[in-house]
């Protein structure tokens, strides 16, 4: 009975979770706030993007996707290239977010 209850609780917890992703892109050419704005506006127009942060100091663009949504490497690369900059690397980190 106890095992059944635990299994049931686990099912409730996991069915209420979704995976969001944090994508960090290293970018060349990021030298001013206007550059950052171009990248910010380009990514904010994507339905899969929850948040976007541009750091001129580290030259990193950090994108968080909405739960269970994804931006593949090719899309990230194209969006940054279209904004006028050059991507030099991408790292990804999955985060467990409560579903809405």
């Amino acid at each position, binding site marked *: 009975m106890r095992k059944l209850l635990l299994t049931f609780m686990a099912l409730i917890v996991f069915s209420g979770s979704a995976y969001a992703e944090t994508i960090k892109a290293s970018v060349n050419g990021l*030298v001013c*706030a206007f550059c950052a*704005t171009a990248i910010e506006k380009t990514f904010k127009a994507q339905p899969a993007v929850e948040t976007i942060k541009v750091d001129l100091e580290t030259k990193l663009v950090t994108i968080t996707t909405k739960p269970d949504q994804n931006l593949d490497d090719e899309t990230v690369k194209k969006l940054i290239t279209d904004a006028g900059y050059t991507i030099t690397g991408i790292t990804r980190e999955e985060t467990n977010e409560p579903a809405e």
Partner: protein
Amino acid sequence: MDSKFIQTIIFAVSIAGAGFPASAIAKPLSYPGGTMVMQENDETGHTLSLDYTVTPKYAVAIYAKKESGGDDYTTVGPQINTLIKRWNLPDGQGNIFNLTGIGVSHEGSDNEFAAWTSLLADYETRRIFVSYEPRIMYAGGIDKSFSQRGRVGFAPYLANYEDLNTWFMVQVDHHPKKDDTFVVTPLVRLFYKTTLVEAGYSSNDHLMFNWQLQF
């Protein structure tokens, strides 16, 4: 400080200064779908342009300028801004742009076909800025001229995206057909996110006041 407050202050100062004499500005392209409004008031006249970036390499613009300090006339017409080459480096960016337009120049009762083209080369890091722009203007019997403009600047501190960016710059204009052939203008550039303003005072005693907004 609150970002909206800073933008409001910059915008208010820009509007207040728009009637003063002032000069040249930032990159003539933003990002696909982006719009820029630029106004320059300097010893060469008053310029207003509205740019819409179509692709990463092309923007279309409406350009208008009232020249002063020599032949005083007005030019209006469409312009295409092209990114010819960009170098994205780990700590800097270099660009070569072409700005070409055609339109009508008006002086007194005279209206003439006008065409103009310039190359704009720039290089900047978060600390230094250099640019050079040679320009040719043809306006039939009103004007046929060559001019060139160079700028150097440095940032006294390294600002991040959320900070107010400050630059100290010197602009040198060479326009053989104007009353003052060489003009030097020290200026201060401030920008915060999508709003840029510049103010300076030229060696021929004119105030410079420029502003740019991105949408």
